[in-house]
């Protein structure tokens, strides 16, 4: 188990480096520079600015300067925010985005599992149809639309919940987490429902029931753990989707997370910030995948020896 984990960690390192390199190259190929604003800079001035950000050096030198910095934990200056470095900005945004992402993840997973189990137990009866319907809204309606509508109903008309912002008040997170968690809960519940139905139809469950073990006990003791396997394999990608998917939610509700930095930075060619954000996401996602793999190995021992 430990060796397995170690091997996975070693394999993750080159991936991070490849991702950095890829991103670096791609951003430099994009048209437009970070200093083209509404008004042009005088050429002498622009040369000064470029020198400050090392943009006057050959690309390869810029690359090594950058990677060197990253290894020391310095993600360089942001080109659109003068007062904060990329590390500063990410330092502000990460706790929020992660809190949002993880809360949504936990809530969505729990709801998804419960809905999946209830649906499976009541297969093709009204609770099943009702739950499937509610949950499907999260997948087939774009989340920005859900966000706008919730904001209007609960923020403006009913005024039950704050319409946005983040000032440390948890009620401000109810709508953002709902919007973010909904599609995830939907997918989890669909996976869970499918695998639960299958497990419930399996011979050993029938045997257990025939032996007279109570239905609830059968469910808890025998059906849920095996049914979880396909769900677990989705948790890693699902969590990475929640962490990167908060862009829309952050935009609508005016939340101080890194998703908004990323979009704004990409649009404004803030190389430093885009690279920094991407590297951060890659590292986090690699770590999460690692954890999920290990969890998977625990649930399904076959995996370890593959």
């Amino acid at each position, binding site marked *: 188990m430990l060796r397995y984990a170690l091997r996975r960690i070693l394999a993750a390192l080159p991936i991070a480096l490849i991702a950095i390199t890829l991103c670096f190259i791609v951003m430099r190929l994009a*048209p*437009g*520079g*970070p200093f*083209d*604003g*509404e*008004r*042009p*800079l*005088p050429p*002498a*001035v*622009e040369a*000064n*600015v470029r020198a400050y950000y090392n943009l006057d050096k050959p690309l390869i030198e810029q690359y090594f300067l950058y990677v060197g910095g990253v290894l020391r934990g310095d993600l360089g200056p942001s080109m*659109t*925010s*003068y*007062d*904060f470095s990329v590390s500063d*900005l990410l330092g*502000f*945004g990460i706790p929020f985005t992660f809190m949002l992402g993880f809360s949504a993840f936990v*809530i969505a997973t*729990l*709801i998804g599992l*419960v809905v999946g*189990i209830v649906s499976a137990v009541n297969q093709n009866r009204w609770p099943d149809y009702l739950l499937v319907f509610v949950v499907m809204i999260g997948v087939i309606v774009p989340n920005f639309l859900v*966000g*706008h509508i919730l*904001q*209007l109903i609960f*923020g*403006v008309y009913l*005024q*039950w*919940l*704050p*319409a*946005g*912002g983040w000032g440390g*008040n*948890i*009620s*401000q997170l*109810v709508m953002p987490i709902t919007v973010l968690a909904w599609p995830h809960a939907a997918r989890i519940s669909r996976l869970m429902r499918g695998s639960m139905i299958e497990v419930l139809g399996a011979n050993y469950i029938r045997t257990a029931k025939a032996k007279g073990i109570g239905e609830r006990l059968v469910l808890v003791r025998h059906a849920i753990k095996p049914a979880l396997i396909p769900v677990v394999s989705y948790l890693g990608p699902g969590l990475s989707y929640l962490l990167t998917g908060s862009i829309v939610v952050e*935009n*609508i*509700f*005016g*939340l*101080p*997370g890194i998703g*908004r*930095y990323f979009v*704004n930075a990409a*649009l*404004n*060619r803030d190389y430093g910030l885009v690279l920094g954000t991407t590297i951060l996401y890659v590292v986090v996602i690699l770590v999460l995948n690692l954890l999920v793999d290990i969890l998977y190995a625990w649930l399904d021992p076959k995996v370890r020896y593959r």
Partner: protein
Amino acid sequence: MKFVPFAKFAAVAAALAISFSATAGAQTLRTFNGGEPASLDPHRVSGDWENRIVGDYLEGLMTEDANATPILGQAEAFTISDDGLTYTFVIRSDAMWSDGTPVTAQDFDYAFRRLFDPARAAEYAYLQYPIKNAEAINAGEMPMDQLGVRVIDDRTIEFTLEQPTPYFVDALAHYTAYPLPRHVVEQFGDAWVQPANIVGNGPYNIVEWIPNSYIHSVKSETYYDAANVQIAEVYYYALDDLAAALQRYRAGEFDIMTDFPTDQYQLLQTQYPGQAHVAPFLGIYYYVMNQNMPQLQDVNVRKALSMAVNRDVIGPQILGTGELPAYGWVPPGTANYPFPGYQPDWVALPYGERVAQATALMEAAGYTAQNPLRLQLRYNTNDNHQRIAVAIAAMWEPLHVQVELFNSETAVHYDALQNNDFAGVGRAGWLMDYNDAINTLELLRSDIQYNYGRFNNPEFDALLRQSATITDMAARAVILREAEVLAMENYAALPLYYYVSKNVVSPRVQGFVDNAKDIHRTRWLSLTN
């Protein structure tokens, strides 16, 4: 049991909703301020959203009143020499930094030297180019000690100008002319603007900055006019989704919005009467025509394009906020410019007739349905720009003009315009930095980078040069008008409308005065319940 997570979730949500009902205090102003500031350093900012924050924590020799007209700020008096070249300012004896240090002439001197330091690359330094040798110093062609700024004593500072500049006092209210707390900047370097270090001399002090969320300022007790400053604290919120921002205003989370989605104007007018403020604003929205393209070198083609644009539908119909059609280059109401907005003679014709004449011009130039003029229309990504571009493309269709719409982000868009890298027409806009006609007319000078369309008319350039040597304001205005008419008769560019400022102001807020600069310092506002 299965529904426990649901139940818990709902209970927590309900409990929190109740606790939220007690919010911000009575003297807290919450402003929706648009974009995230790139910086709070006055030498690094460029947008109106930054100006609103910076102008609340710093103040120049001059400042703006509720009407945005320049009034004395940190200075208590000034004198102008008879030749109009030397300005001497006396700083108030009670002018003080928020850490208790007095504001001195040296602080201003230090700030101007920093502003013109070529290594600093302050984007807006050119606004203070009326100061003697400033332009050459900023370009690195002259040593800093030649700058026309001189400290007479701790409280007196003298400016020598290149030439008489009637709008210089106005320019001194701009953030490029703010003093800097020299003792703080020297101690912390560029980090002096971080909330932990920042020191100001304005009515408010920055205490907190959550990037991409808000900046929080509280009233400064060391400000000379603190007794009359009513609002105790201000939050400036940064938010990109304008529609979502309006919902938050409607939910009572903002007191002022500095912009609103034009489509919601009607809703605001009916459901929130009197809260949406739309007022004339010194600026023009225009299209440049790339005159390096042979097709657009033909003045008749440019004329036809201009004639066929039905500007009367843009403001009221397409935007819905009633922007006034523009045919001239200087917004009406510009200071020292006593003329109505320029209008060509064809404005009086019915629109159908104009299109017919324009089509005739195009056909005379050799364009037909089989051989259309192909133009690219570039604009930066934005709902309103897009709508206007779509409408204008449709207006040009009868003229045998085939338009390819091309949008890109602001950075990419202006990169293309500056490099003259657009095959046709490009959108641009200009908000006046100071209230003088030269500020927009210069956009058409052949040797200036902002002249995206590369309009090149020696006669026009000569008129602008001539205007700079004239001290009599009335005579100068005549020359400038001559230049404007010349440029417009040559269809140097295609003005579309004069900007309006768009604010939404809650009835709680008192003292908000619509003005042509759209500057509303918090100091003049107050809140009622």
